[in-house]
């Protein structure tokens, strides 16, 4: 894992001291809320429905056990004993007090963490594949490239006031486990003729106007990846709309300009920049890569005992093949049926930290589906791990199944929400859990408003909360995917009330079960049949 050098630490410490001073001035009345608000947002401190909310960055979703333990301590000391893992691989605290925030940030800085650039119109936390570094199908561990981009984008003066927020994802496999094409910039690290480089996509995103990012560059050598991103950002910064918040994301610019014209502009800017030698020296990427060198794996064979049927079910569902023989990556589902997707208590976080230390070479990952991963588990210790997870309520065997629902905080917490998403997710999970093993992979994703934090456009089944004259209402969408077979879900038709949406999801699941051929996933059946039979079942009952 990457460790801060003196510059990283000094920057973060200086920011904590600066914010402490700003908070003092705010509390003394020397600063008004209008003056203070942009400053608190730059430090990840939002106002939500019930209280201040702090969003903490987890670079590319990787945490050490020490960091996870610190996050648990913060949940206990400054919050109400729990935290919420988000679809951007970050973590949020819902009940933070302003007067305590500087101390909280100081605690974070002690474990090389912060909340900088988790809000505002800047480059946000860089996300990645939760199985980076351990997946057999990757070209290389993409996290050093993500870390390089993190360093480049942190406090980048030119990109601190972009037209709108900016999200980058980096992966290194054909399989996309990070919704890469739905980011402002999506990068796939590839090897061409023995040379490592980046395939670059730009202009993707969800929100009000979902777009799949087109390819902008087939290949840029890895030591020019940063300046290529810089060229994209410059074109966006120059031409991105600042007059209309809803048209300010890069996806609108790319869409309205056309990918070809946009590419031309980026290439011109890139060519202009090359003589300026703005890329970080190769030695820096090499220095970062050294932090991500594979750990010392034992020379062991694949195989483990699955005689306990409950363990077998979990192992069949929640394990991901590891590139190292004899190891596996285990997903800890934060989706107990009836629970709150992505929430973990401080005790559970402590347990995960402890298990990471004992079973996973000290590492934990956060997934964009709001689960956690222990990436380096010896297969011969999986059963012991599972027993400990099970005892802590951390062993739902439902990865990518119907009850593994992505749900944003919605109206239960979020001041922008139109409708609640969590209770709908809870009800759907209860309804579908009994059949989820038979149904197979089914990704249900819910957002409480058009901002799409719950990725509803990318759900095999998506749910969007809307406000219908002050009453919570829900639109149903079908056919989305955030993976390598990326697609945007389509609205089925008129919306449903709170109870109706749960019934509607059950209905479309039944249509799929009746029409399914072989091992088809819901998405495959939908793509084969189209919307018609689902629509018919939903609306032609009378």
């Amino acid at each position: 894992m990457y460790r801060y050098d003196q510059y990283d630490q000094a920057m973060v410490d200086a920011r904590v001291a600066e914010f402490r001073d700003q908070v003092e001035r705010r509390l003394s009345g020397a600063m008004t809320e209008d003056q203070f608000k942009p400053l608190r947002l730059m430090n990840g401190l939002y106002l939500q429905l019930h209280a201040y909310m702090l969003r903490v960055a987890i670079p590319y979703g990787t945490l050490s056990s020490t960091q996870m333990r610190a996050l648990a301590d913060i949940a206990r000391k400054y919050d109400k004993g729990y935290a919420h893992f988000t679809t951007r691989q970050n973590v949020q605290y819902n009940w933070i007090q302003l007067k305590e925030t500087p101390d909280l940030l100081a605690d974070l800085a002690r474990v090389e963490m912060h909340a900088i650039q988790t809000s505002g119109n800047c480059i946000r936390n860089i996300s990645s594949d939760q199985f980076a570094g351990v997946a057999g199908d990757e070209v290389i561990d993409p996290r050093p490239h993500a870390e390089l981009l993190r360093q480049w984008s942190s406090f980048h003066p030119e990109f601190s006031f972009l037209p709108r927020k900016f999200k980058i994802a980096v992966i290194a496999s054909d399989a996309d486990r990070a919704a890469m094409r739905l980011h402002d910039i999506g990068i796939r690290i590839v090897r061409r003729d023995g040379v490592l480089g980046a395939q670059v996509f730009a202009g993707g995103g969800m929100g009000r106007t979902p777009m799949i990012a087109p390819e902008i560059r087939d290949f840029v050598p890895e030591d020019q990846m940063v300046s290529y991103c810089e060229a994209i950002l410059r074109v966006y910064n120059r031409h991105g709309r600042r007059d209309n918040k809803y048209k300010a994301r890069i996806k609108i610019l790319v869409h309205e300009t056309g990918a070809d014209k946009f590419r031309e502009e980026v290439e011109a800017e890139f060519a202009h920049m090359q003589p300026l030698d703005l890329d970080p020296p190769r030695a820096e990427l090499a220095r970062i890569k050294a932090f991500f060198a594979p750990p010392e794996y034992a020379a062991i064979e694949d195989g483990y005992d699955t005689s306990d049927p409950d363990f077998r079910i979990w192992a069949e569902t929640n394990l991901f093949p590891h590139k190292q023989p004899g190891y596996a990556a285990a997903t800890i589902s934060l989706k107990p049926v009836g629970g709150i997707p992505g929430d973990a208590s401080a005790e559970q976080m402590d347990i995960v930290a402890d298990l990471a230390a004992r079973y996973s070479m000290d590492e934990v990952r956060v997934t964009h589906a709001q689960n956690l991963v222990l990436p380096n588990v010896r297969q011969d210790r999986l059963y012991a791990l599972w027993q400990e997870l099970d005892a802590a309520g951390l062993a739902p065997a439902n990865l990518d199944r119907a009850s593994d629902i992505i749900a944003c905080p919605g109206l239960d917490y979020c001041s922008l929400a139109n409708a609640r998403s969590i209770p709908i997710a809870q009800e759907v999970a209860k309804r579908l859990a009994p059949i989820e093993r038979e149904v197979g992979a089914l990704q249900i994703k819910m957002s409480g408003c058009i901002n799409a934090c719950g990725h509803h456009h990318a759900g095999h089944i998506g749910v969007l909360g809307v406000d219908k004259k002050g009453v919570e209402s829900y639109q149903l969408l079908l056919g989305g995917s955030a993976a390598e077979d990326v697609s945007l879900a389509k609205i089925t038709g008129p919306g449903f009330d709170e109870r109706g949406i749960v019934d509607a999801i059950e209905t479309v699941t039944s249509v799929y079960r009746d029409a399914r051929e072989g091992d088809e996933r819901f998405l495959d059946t939908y793509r084969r049949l189209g919307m018609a039979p689902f629509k018919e079942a939903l609306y032609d009952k009378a």
Partner: protein
Amino acid sequence: MKIVTGNDLKTGDVIWWTGSGWSRHLVDAADVGEDGEAIIARESAAQKVFDGYVVDGEMTDAGPRPAHIKDRMRALGPSVRLDLGVQAKGPVHVSL
């Protein structure tokens, strides 16, 4: 009725204007008539409250009821965590 609400600067807690001060309990909220914006301006300047706004509501037998579900949610706490928010400390007179 018109109700003034906002958040306590130090703690972030949801608060309601009672006519003479701030309360964490919606039941204490006063009908401010046309004075909402003036109260917000004065109280914001005093640095006690931030993000103040006026909400429409009606006075019921049990007490004030904001028209919008968002404000009823703020008065209660998350509907999925009844152990948190004002609702955790005792019954609240409104439901979602």
